[in-house]
């Protein structure tokens, strides 16, 4: 295990996102948030509080109307589409409520896709790594199956494997357990937890479940697009 010395991985400075229109809609505003390595952050809030919007902004999927998002201290405000795609490819991994696997591809192929897009490894290595990731998530036997041949919990684990493909610094998860039964939820949560503890990956998870949020290390609460509380968990998760 590395020392507890953390460096800032992802940072929001005065971020606001306002949808233009006759009546402009403010999704989030005045967001100042700094997330370091090894952190397991829950973003909670009622429906429409802007927690998903915040995650999209942190994940460079959306551009802030005001402010700046920094990835490893690098401003993303002036990034071109290519640069921000590159940053997502190398630094970020996404897990959504819906698994978003490509239906026509096998699990191995799905996991391999981001690696092939980055092309940092040879095709043989990519295949090997993809199978390794699936095996680590207990899916070794299913790797030649297609997404519609496995269960919801398994699909979500494949999605996590895919998010981990290029060894990102941050995993951004939007309701990762939202569609799952409690057993699968626990499995997925445990995987995320072990990523933080064992790999030192930063995990930011949006959830509406207070219970789940309590099991994480840091809890950011949003109401009406504004951070109302940001506190470390008192008791470490078991």
């Amino acid at each position: 295990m590395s020392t507890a010395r953390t460096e800032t991985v992802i940072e929001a400075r005065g971020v606001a996102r306002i949808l233009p229109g006759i009546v402009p809609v403010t999704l989030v505003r005045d967001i100042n948030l700094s997330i370091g390595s090894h952190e397991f952050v829950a973003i909670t809030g009622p429906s429409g509080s802007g927690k998903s919007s915040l995650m999209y902004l942190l994940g460079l999927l959306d551009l802030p109307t005001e402010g700046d998002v920094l990835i490893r201290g690098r401003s993303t405000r002036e990034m071109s589409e290519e640069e921000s795609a590159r940053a997502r490819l190398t630094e970020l991994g996404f897990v959504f409520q819906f698994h978003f696997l490509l239906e026509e591809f096998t699990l191995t192929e799905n996991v391999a896709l981001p690696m092939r897009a980055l092309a940092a490894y040879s095709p043989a290595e990519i295949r090997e790594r993809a199978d390794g990731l699936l095996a680590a998530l207990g899916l070794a036997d299913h790797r030649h199956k297609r997404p519609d041949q496995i269960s919801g919990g398994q699909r979500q684990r494949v999605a996590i494997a895919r998010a981990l493909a290029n060894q990102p610094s941050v995993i951004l998860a939007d309701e990762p357990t939202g569609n799952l039964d409690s057993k699968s939820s626990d499995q997925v949560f445990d995987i995320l937890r072990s990523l933080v503890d064992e790999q030192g990956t930063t995990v930011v998870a949006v959830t509406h479940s207070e219970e789940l949020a309590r099991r994480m290390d840091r809890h950011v609460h949003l109401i009406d697009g504004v951070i109302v509380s940001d506190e470390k968990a008192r008791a470490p998760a078991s």
Partner: protein
Amino acid sequence: MKLILDIALTHVLARGRQTLIAIFSVATGVGFAVMIAAMLEGTENDFIDMLVDTIPHVVISDEPDRPAPQPAHAVFDAAEIRGLMPQVRRRGIKNPRATMAALESWAPGPLTPSVRSNSLLRYAGRDLAVSVIGIDPAREVKVSRLAEHLRSGSLKSLYTASNAVILGTRLAERIGARVGANVSIVSPSGVRINSMVVGLFRSGSRQIDETTIYTLLTTAQILENQIGLVNEIRLRVPDPMNSQPIAQRIAQETGYKAVSWAEANEDMMSSLRVRNIMLYAIVGAILLVASFGTYNIISTITHEKARDIAIMKSFGFTARTIRRIFVTEALILGTVGALAGFLLGYLLCLWLGTIEFRNPMVDFDRLPIAYSWRHYFLAGTAALVSSFIAGYFPARKAASVHPVEIIRGAA
């Protein structure tokens, strides 16, 4: 780029039926384009070959290039002269031997003198207007295909009887004459000769076969009542498509009218051109319609794959990569369609080549088909270009998908 190809192939293969329809529509377009092009060029070549074979490439006739000025015009400086008896010009090309010798010094092919006489053929109580052409058999074989067109007799048999003639088959049929028949020919000069039919020819051109009689130069000269007359020199050139400049040079040097075969058949050549334009327009329309099939499937795929596009963009695919994926899909359809179309076109050509064909003007037994890589190249290129365009617009739309909108909507 293997990644792009993999994704594109997977998308295309996953939609079997639609993919087949798109490929089939491109293949149909390409196949018929190839077929029509092969047929067009085949019939055109055949027609021109026939024309070039049966008629001389350049004809030099004794008509002056411009009507000769009357001597009175040279003497009197008058605006108009009335009641003048025009000077009668001696017919024929002046000093034909010298003219021919001069032409032979530079002309690229053999030439032959002949006498053309518009006369009347009289047999079994029937009178028919015919062209009597007096030829020199030894030279004629080098210039025209007459020897090959003979159905009976030979050019040498013209020497076997006095005033021997060779008739077109259709002409012989019309009057009911056979080889050995005695016919009489009456010329405008009032000369009447009795001749014997020693051969029959069939050129393939109905007009020629119905109205032409070949005989020896001397016989035609007797008919025209002018010894030593030559009123036509015919020239064969190695490259018939390029006979026009030669005709022009001859006209310039000799002062006689020289007409190339293409010029003589200008109306037919221009109707061929019109026919080509029309048919290529139809082919273009077929290919255009085929490209709608491609457009349709690519836009369906991009529509259905909006979610996949969003997710691929979320983990770092660029808009350019997405665009390439869908353009590649269109090109796959276009390429496979074009290849299938080549096969279809080739089979159609083979099939068309077996069809028997009869034409009242010309007769060939089978529809002539030209096989040329250019047809395939043109149709293939057109199919690929239209596929590219058909794929590009949906691809551009797909690339502009905003991941957040899709992800938010699908959750």
